[in-house]
């Protein structure tokens, strides 16, 4: 019945030599040589080289040549030299800047506002899911939907705005004054939910005790938002801005469907112009030159944003 026996402690403990291990035990985290990792990654590198690195260098090669079907000729940087005097190229930059600035501003303001309104409410989950629906649509399809809504004969928005006297007989996309706004609205409609989603995630990690401490310190709700919530949101907002501005520089699906750069050149932002040069006029060399410049600018802007991001993060010691 004795569950526990009384242990006897011997007066002296016999000392035994610790056996020296001859072979090293198999260690789980022993660092392996670099070449081992290289061979593990080699297949991936090969695929990446084929689908990404090769086209990149091919683009640089093309940008320095006159490219035609079955005919490639060195042209002494003519593709680049001609660009500064190409008004549509320069105009493309201006329009791209306008387009991107409008999209980003509206999306950030509306997105953050929506997130603040939704955060912590009872319907948060279901409303967020509903809000996300535009984002799941292919940009091309979104463009088509809005094309119908804007249509001058049967478009519902067109009819509404015209009945209210805001719009003349010309449809939104047909007037060079309003076409750009029409495009911005589509982008805002489709991508604001992304900002809302990211901001909501950011809001969840705003420390409650800091908000409360600031309230006791004497802050009004607005001051509290500016001095505690916003600094905690900066990192996520910067990521959102980075994602969206890069998308603005790349995604032209809906624009091609809606205006194709028209009327005239009113919405011919640089990526649309690039598409036109390369695949309508088949000036592949010049297109490659424009693409290269666009890429470099995107990288520089991205780097700048990352630097701002790093500065916002409290220094770690």
């Amino acid at each position, binding site marked *: 019945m004795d569950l526990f026996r009384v242990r006897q402690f011997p007066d002296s403990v016999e000392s035994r030599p610790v056996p020296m291990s001859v072979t090293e035990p198999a260690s789980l985290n022993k660092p392996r040589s670099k070449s081992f990792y290289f061979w593990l990654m080699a297949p991936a590198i090969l695929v990446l080289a084929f689908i990404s690195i090769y086209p990149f260098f091919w683009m640089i090669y093309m940008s320095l040549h006159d490219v035609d079907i079955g005919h490639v000729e060195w042209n002494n940087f003519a593709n680049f030299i001609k660009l500064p005097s190409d008004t549509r190229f320069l105009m493309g930059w201006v329009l791209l800047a306008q387009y991107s600035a409008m999209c980003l501003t509206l999306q950030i303001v509306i997105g953050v506002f929506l997130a603040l309104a939704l955060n912590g409410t009872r319907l948060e989950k279901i409303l967020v899911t509903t809000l996300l629906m535009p984002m799941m649509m292919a940009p091309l399809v979104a463009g088509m939907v809005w094309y119908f809504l804007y249509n001058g004969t049967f478009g519902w928005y067109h009819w509404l705005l015209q009945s209210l006297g805001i719009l003349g007989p010309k449809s939104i996309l047909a007037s060079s004054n309003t076409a750009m706004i029409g495009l911005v609205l589509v982008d805002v409609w489709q991508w604001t939910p992304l900002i809302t989603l990211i901001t909501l995630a950011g809001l969840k990690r705003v*420390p409650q*005790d*800091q908000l409360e*401490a600031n309230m006791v*310190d004497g802050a009004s709700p607005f001051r509290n938002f500016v001095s505690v919530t916003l*600094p905690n949101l900066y990192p996520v907002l910067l990521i959102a801005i980075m994602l969206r501005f890069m998308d603005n520089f790349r995604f032209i699906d809906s624009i091609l469907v809606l205006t194709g750069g028209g009327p005239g050149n009113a919405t011919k932002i640089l990526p649309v112009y690039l598409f036109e040069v390369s695949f309508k006029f088949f000036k592949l060399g010049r297109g490659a030159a424009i693409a290269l410049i666009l890429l470099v600018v995107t990288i520089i802007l991205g780097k700048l944003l990352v630097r701002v991001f790093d500065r916002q993060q409290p220094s770690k010691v």
Partner: protein
Amino acid sequence: MAKVSFRNVWKKYGDMPAVKDLNIECPDGSFLSVLGPSGCGKSSTMRMVAGLEHITSGQILFDERPINGLAPKDRDVAMVFENYALYPHKSVYENMANPLKLRGQDASVIKERVTAAAKLLEINHLLERRPQELSGGQKQRVAIGRAIVREPNLFLFDEPIAHLDAKLRAHMRGEIKHLQRTLGTTMIYVTHDQLEAMSMADTIAVMHDGELQQLGTPREVYNHPVNAWVAGFVGEPAMNFVDVGVEDRAGRAHFIHQNFAVPVTEEQQRRLSDGSRGSALRMGVRPDALSISMTKPSDSCITGKIFVTELLGGDMIVDVDLDDCRIRVKTSTEFSGEEGQTCYMTVNTNKWHAFSKENGKAFF
């Protein structure tokens, strides 16, 4: 500085009451410690004072002025949070200047006050650092500094030193008490550590299950607990409880147990006769109200068997097995009993307690 009064204060989360009918008067300039285990409603109480939690019913008054409807910023209280709640993107100086800045003080005044507070807390060499470059103790000082830069009605300290290591905690207990005495500001200090409450407060409010159990000075709470729960919660090592019967022998009530029969004092006999005579009682005796020896000192002593002895450096705790329970005795390190030996304990009858077995209320 203000007097703080709780009048019939209730806090309910849905239907769950967290604070039940709280009535406390905290005089101007005094140090009130709200003591209780986690979930007893002490933090809810403090958050209601700060304005971070809605008061379900009842009133909280500063100097007889109800503050129920006031926003936190208008209550003029300063709070130190358990996790310090420093602003990570601001330097120590900016953290401490925040309450003054939000109240629109001049830069020169801010500088003067922050520097003075920093000097008082000995953190003036840290003012340029960010919170994440500080140790726990330093963060805690900054959090206190942020509270003392202005002259609020009231300090609210929510377990501010719970996350520090034992040595630093002991040091900070003295510092905080000294600080409160120096500034003379009313302080409400929430803690689950009875040692903190005992060592610092003028008045202790012991809470359990949302109800105020006892309000009194540390001495009162320690020496005259109103019920068995308070008696068991306050004091380290905890009070020993032994179920006893009461019997009259030669005109004097005795506490009867298999291991002993000890007479009560006259005063205690009177108190017992007011209550339930003859019924089963719970005797409570603190480890330091017992003296232990290996020889039998008298007939009215408790006989037991040593279960284990623990040397604590300065004194020794002896666990003794009685027939139906185990009690702990605090004694000097000279005590030489061995495990398994029979020992004898004498109770200081002026220092023991008797509680009703039904509702835990104290007879004495």
